[in-house]
């Protein structure tokens, strides 16, 4: 194994330049180092001006999404040795406006998320002293979609989101499905207007890259696909059944 590896890092400093540039750094190549450790080495030892987000360094907080050699990845769970002998090219996540260096603006997702009502909509006030019963089998229905860490890799992978920024997008739809499929929830009807709109599931053309990129195996593509079927069935029923019978 070589001693070091070159990291080519995409830089954008809005106060200094209007176009992005690339900077190259030589960092030690250690077998336990993630791309994030490389960036931290740069930040702490070589160039304090590099900006990027990170926190948990254990793949659960969702801060460190970035593009590594063209693919959306979590910087803290992607290892330098997998790219030896290098160079490793690090860019901000695609499909987002960039604030600076590797820091993207994700306000768009944060604004869309509440529109799909990602919280439990109850039928009535639950009894304070007991839990809702939910068997492990019922939990299996939605468990997978509850694993989303909001890392935005799926948005970075989805070409439809790049082309149509109005698209609600994979993670938000998966989170809506997380509640729709929860046996304790009664809010599916409330979420329908947004989910089944042209900017909702219908905008997705099933590229499927969102599910490939997802580091937590959420399978947003599956969530969307499933919802299409649900929404279509509902629409047919609305069409065929008179109002009262629904």
């Amino acid at each position, binding site marked *: 194994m070589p001693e070091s590896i070159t990291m080519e890092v995409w830089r954008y400093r809005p106060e200094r330049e209007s176009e992005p540039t690339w900077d190259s750094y030589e960092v030690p190549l250690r077998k336990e180092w993630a791309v994030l450790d490389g960036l931290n080495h740069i930040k702490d030892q070589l160039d304090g001006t590099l900006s990027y987000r990170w926190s948990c360094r254990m793949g659960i*907080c969702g801060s460190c999404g970035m593009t590594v050699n063209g693919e959306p990845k979590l910087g803290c769970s992607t290892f330098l040795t997998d790219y030896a002998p290098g160079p490793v090219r690090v860019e901000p996540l695609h499909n987002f406006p960039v604030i600076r260096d590797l820091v993207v603006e994700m306000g768009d997702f944060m604004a869309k998320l509440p529109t799909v009502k990602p919280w439990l909509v109850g039928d009535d006030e639950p009894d304070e002293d007991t839990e*809702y019963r939910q068997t492990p089998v019922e939990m299996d229905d939605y468990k997978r979609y509850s694993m989303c860490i909001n890392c935005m890799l799926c948005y970075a992978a989805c070409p439809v989101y790049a082309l149509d920024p109005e698209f609600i997008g994979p993670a938000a739809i998966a989170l809506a499905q997380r509640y729709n499929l929860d046996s304790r*929830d009664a809010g599916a009807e409330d979420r329908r207007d947004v989910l089944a709109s042209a900017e909702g599931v219908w905008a997705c053309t099933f590229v499927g890259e969102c599910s490939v990129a997802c580091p937590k195996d959420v399978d947003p593509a599956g969530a969307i696909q499933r919802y299409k079927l649900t929404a279509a069935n509902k629409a047919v029923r609305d069409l065929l059944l008179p109002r009262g019978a629904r």
Partner: protein
Amino acid sequence: MAAWHNVVIVGGGGAGLRAAIAVAEANPKLTVAIVSKVYPMRSHTVSAEGGAAAVAGDDDTMDEHAYDTVSGSDWLCDQDAVEAFVVEARKELLRLEHWGCPWSREPDGRIAVRAFGGMKKRRTWFAADKTGFHLLHTLFQTALSYTDIVRYDEWFVTKLLVHDGRVRGVVAVELATGRVETIVADAVIVCTGGCGRVFPFTTNANIKTGDGMALAYQAGAPLKDMEFVQYHPTGLPFTGILITEAARAEGGRLLNKDGYRYLQDYDLGTPTDEPVLRSMELGPRDRLSQAFVHEMEKGRTVETEAGHVVHLDLRHLGEKLVDERLPFVRELCASYQNIDPVHELVPVRPVVHYMMGGIHTDIHGATPLTGLYAAGEVACVSINGANRLGSNSLPELLVFGARAGQAVAEFVATVPGAATAPVLAQGRDEERRLVRELSGRQHSDGERIADIRTEMQETMEAGAGIYRDEASLTKALDKLAELKTRFARASMDDASRTFNTELVAMLELSGMLDVATCIVASGLRRKESRGAHQRTDFPDRDDETYLAHSVISRKPDGDWRVEYLPVTITRWPPGERVYGR
């Protein structure tokens, strides 16, 4: 520029979100804002793995949970707080269930519970081994349904504004733009989490830099029991990533280099095949971490590139159980250690994990400083005393987050509005200070922020680690004073206002130096050994003098003062901590 809210909550982790919901529920007319340096769902609560404790089964009682907590704390907690805590913990966890938290279940649909260290009954609720993740996302998503909660995401709070002896707001920097804003408030709740990052080897995330403790300390509020820093016995050697106690609760065993279950040599019981509550691997964290140090001194640990380790053995649990109950452990071992715990031994060593101490509050989250409240890991209520039991922290931040929220809602309804002009003037001073910091550090002859930080961390490990003594603590204190002077002259590469993370690191380090000093100074004063505070020069517990909370506060001249407050004892007089017998 200035903004105004009735209540400002600093921190969007579990405690902050729970407090915000509590305020919104208590009085929907109040405007409440969460100011957080990361998006709320990135807060460190997300990393908690093992679970949250509250009485669940019919065989368990509130008293038993309280007793385990009190004895676990080595009798340093306040028992009135613990009694309130155990009752409300259950309510809070149920509340979370009603909000949708995917707690793991029994086949019949009831909540499942697991064993945890130091607990005599099974009462740890869990969502596989991603409890904190599910808890935080449930809270965050639920908070989204309260449209009145305003959020300042990625805003860094640099100062608490105090006027006329009352906290009146905060100053914060919007990271994306570098804009400095004064946010005026009738009351502030600090929920900024712990400070593990003052140590070099920690399970804590990068954001856990004790900012809130430093903010409160600077504003004149005292910090309590700061010498009690919890080491978790099982961290991965290179990264410090936590292998949850749940791994041992499910039956994992700790082995030394000879494959021997060494805990039996440290008065923690005798080995059995099935895990026994409050015994061996299910002993409390302080005792397990101390046992490691003794094993190492006896030369019975394994030496690796990343220091000495022992082994956590999960192989006998089988793939099915690991995948069902500890999937994240398997994932973490695979990613960060390149091993599969189903077939291989996991190398582990003690790692700084949790801060028992924090901002001194009463059982409603109120600090002695009017208008300032605190909850979560940043606060010291105290239910954790000298040693926190695993899985008590998540329910703590819910219980006391909610309590602080309710107390603040009442407080702001009663206080008169105060003059804002002097508050805004203070805000402008702080803005000028920040601008000076940014431009004044652009010289090339100073040291790097990161180098000073590393030195501080090493100082803390050497001087205030699992075992400490007069000499090590004094040396650390001197070193910290030296580092403060050097820090004043440290330089920065980055002069930008746009997402300047070097500026953030600088501000964090400034606070960490204060927090580190408080830890060491409080430790120096406590001449006994209790829970996580082990003095080799005073190896025994001394209830005569030190059954008391240490309280450290800042004197106007910048120096500090340590005082002692009595511990509240309601029903459980101090006794011997017995595990495994």
